[in-house]
């Protein structure tokens, strides 16, 4: 499947600088810290039920089948986004696209490493800051550690992953990252209330 | 009908305002009428009024399930303009605008038509292209609509923010000076009074529950919560409920009904001198004679007859207002409410005969029906009286959705590329 996307051509290394959006930006407020996270490898993975086992094996992480959940192993996290859709994030410098290329079972893997920007929101008031613009219930009962969901923040779409009781990873598209960071900055200033 | 005037008021002031007669009577329904109008909103009452005054048909009943003027007539933001793009739309809305100018005198009822000017803002190159297309088409159709620079727009509406730092700066505007507002209740009441004085029966709290048809298919009357009422002709002017009534007659319509919300601020001294609309930022605003800022925007996304909508819709609306007028964040929303607007696929109305003999329909005005009230009533009365559309409403058929001859003002505004 999908060999064209991953076919390696010249084994060159970049001779030009990678400039990630908002690289290194941080902000601290009472009870909340925001930080733009380092770049990561990401794929949008689509597959029918029958392919899940093979893909899980290839990726080294079991693709979750339960809504609003994620699974994580060795720096690689798979987020359930829909019944046939996962966002796979690799923070260990490995290439999940290449892993999927080995799988013959029906699927679609598309590289989106540069499409998304990730912002961590941490601290005791992290959920409050996100709830300034996100209409979901972020209590630990409703959105426990490991919960993951595509949702809304203010006027844009985000993917939200709870990485700890007081820590979230917010993923958004590159051109919305400025809006998301600014929104969270305003929200952070009022989150401890 | 006793004439209203400053002298009448002075006379009544002397005797404690006890001599005013009823503005309209509330008769019991008769067994049969020549024409039944379903819906006592502005359009329905205007239809009855013009049936009586223009066509001499006075054996007319207007049936209203609630209270007259209580639907969209009493819930809209009262914007009046005629600067539409297509000849068909320009034709009907300008026909209405000409009637607005003089309606107070015609009805001897001050409907407070106020030609304060309607200014439509352009925020990008695409807006300029679209609005200029309107300006040029309007000019050749004899409809006033002029192009303003941002500075001229600000001069016309001083509180407008034309800063280049705005998220969507104002880059120009189209102004129709004859556009403006009117007092919505007065329009319904003025037509009701005029129609009632000429013998039209306005029957409130009378809900239509069925449409009766003879073996040959023709309409014979309507079932109501107050019994069967016969009629040779039935005109359906039921706005949000048009599909419901037409279904009773077995006619399925190309309509969907959505909640449309509006709001007013607390009254303040004059600050917004005209109507300002923006499609891109998406809101509109004017100020009533009472001093309230009158604000509206788009519909909720789903079909509903609940006459309520979501808070997030109001949020989007006020976001937009505060983007155009950042000085208004400290103003307060006093009242918000919802209406039910029936929308056609091309967002133009249907004013036409129907496949059912004796049944006529006037619907699909979407979010913009108030402005057409006099013109719509005038040509719909013609359509019913003559069993043949007036040239002005002839294009607004039901059949256009089959043939594809749409009057698609919204599509003509296109989308950003």
């Amino acid at each position, binding site marked *: 499947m999908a060999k064209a996307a991953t076919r390696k051509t010249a084994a060159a290394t970049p001779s030009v600088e990678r400039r990630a959006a908002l690289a290194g930006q941080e902000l601290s407020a009472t009870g909340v810290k925001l930080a733009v996270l380092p770049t990561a490898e990401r794929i949008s993975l689509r597959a029918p039920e029958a392919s899940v086992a093979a893909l899980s094996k290839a990726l080294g992480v079991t693709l979750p089948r339960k*809504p*609003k959940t994620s699974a994580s192993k060795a720096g690689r996290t798979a987020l359930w*986004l*829909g*019944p046939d*859709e996962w966002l796979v994030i690799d923070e260990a410098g490995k290439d999940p696209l290449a892993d999927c290329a080995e799988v013959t079972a029906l699927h679609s893997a598309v590289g989106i490493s540069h499409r998304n920007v990730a912002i961590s929101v941490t601290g005791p008031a992290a959920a409050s800051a996100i709830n300034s613009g996100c*209409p*979901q219930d972020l209590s630990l009962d409703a959105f426990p550690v490991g919960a993951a*969901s*595509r*949702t*809304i923040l203010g006027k844009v*779409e985000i993917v939200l992953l709870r990485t700890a009781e007081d820590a979230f990873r917010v993923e958004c598209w590159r051109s919305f990252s400025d809006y998301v960071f600014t929104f969270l900055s305003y929200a952070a200033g009022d989150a401890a209330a | 009908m006793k004439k209203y005037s400053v002298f009448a008021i002075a006379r009544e002031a002397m005797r404690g305002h006890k001599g005013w007669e009823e503005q309209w009577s509330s008769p019991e329904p008769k067994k049969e009428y020549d024409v039944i109008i379903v819906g006592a909103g502005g359009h329905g009452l205007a239809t009855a009024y013009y049936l009586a005054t223009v066509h001499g048909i006075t054996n007319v009943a207007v049936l209203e399930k609630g209270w007259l003027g209580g639907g969209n007539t009493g819930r809209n933001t009262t914007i009046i303009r005629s600067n539409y793009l297509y000849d068909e739309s320009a034709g009907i809305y300008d026909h209405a605008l000409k009637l607005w100018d003089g309606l107070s005198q015609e009805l001897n009822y001050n409907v407070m038509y106020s030609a304060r000017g309607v200014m439509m803002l352009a925020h990008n190159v695409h807006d300029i292209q679209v609005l200029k297309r309107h300006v040029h088409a309007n000019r050749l159709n004899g409809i006033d609509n002029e192009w303003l620079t941002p500075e001229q727009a600000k001069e016309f509406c001083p509180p407008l923010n034309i800063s280049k730092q705005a998220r969507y700066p104002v880059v120009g505007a189209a102004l129709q000076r004859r556009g403006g507002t009117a007092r919505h209740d007065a329009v319904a009441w003025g037509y009701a009074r005029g129609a009632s004085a000429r013998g039209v029966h306005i029957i409130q709290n009378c809900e239509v529950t069925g449409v009766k048809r003879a073996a040959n298919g023709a309409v014979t009357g309507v079932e109501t919560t107050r019994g069967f009422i016969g009629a040779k002709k039935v005109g359906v002017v039921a706005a949000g*409920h048009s*599909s*419901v009534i037409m279904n009773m007659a077995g006619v*399925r*319509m*190309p*309509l*969907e*009904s959505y909640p449309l919300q509006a709001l007013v601020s607390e009254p303040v001294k004059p600050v917004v001198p005209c109507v300002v609309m923006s499609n891109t930022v998406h809101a509109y605003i004017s100020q009533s004679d009472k001093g309230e800022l009158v604000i509206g925007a788009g519909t909720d*996304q*789903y*079909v*509903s*007859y*609940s006459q*309520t909508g*979501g*808070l*997030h819709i109001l949020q989007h609306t006020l976001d937009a207002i505060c983007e155009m007028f950042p000085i208004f964040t400290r103003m307060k929303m006093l009242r918000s409410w919802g209406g039910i607007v*029936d929308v056609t*696929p091309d967002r133009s109305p249907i004013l036409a005969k129907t496949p059912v003999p004796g049944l006529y329909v006037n619907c699909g005005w979407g979010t913009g029906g108030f402005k057409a009230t006099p013109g719509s009533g005038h040509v719909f009365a013609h359509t019913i009286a003559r069993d043949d559309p007036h040239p002005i409403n002839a294009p607004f058929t039901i059949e256009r*959705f*089959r*043939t594809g001859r749409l009057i698609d003002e919204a599509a003509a505004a296109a989308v950003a590329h």
Partner: protein
Amino acid sequence: MLLIRCPYCEEERPELEFRNAGEAHIARSANITGESDDDFEKFFFIRSNPKGIIYERWRHMHGCARFFNAVRDTVTDKFIMTYKAGEPKPAKVPGVAK
């Protein structure tokens, strides 16, 4: 803001995540070029627009991104049930007399 149960996410989520997609169970003909003008008008333009129970489509646009169907009362805006795209129109709707 409505609260809508997504049949794929198996929970109620805020309306902001959803996009209404119009009346449900209006099938596009497999032989669409063979449709008459009347058929096409019925398919593309005519809508039931009921005051009462509506069968409608929603997309969980900013959630699982799936289209699904809902049964809702247009007078109260209350949802009666939701179900996945492709499932047949429910013969019986809970709490609704037919």
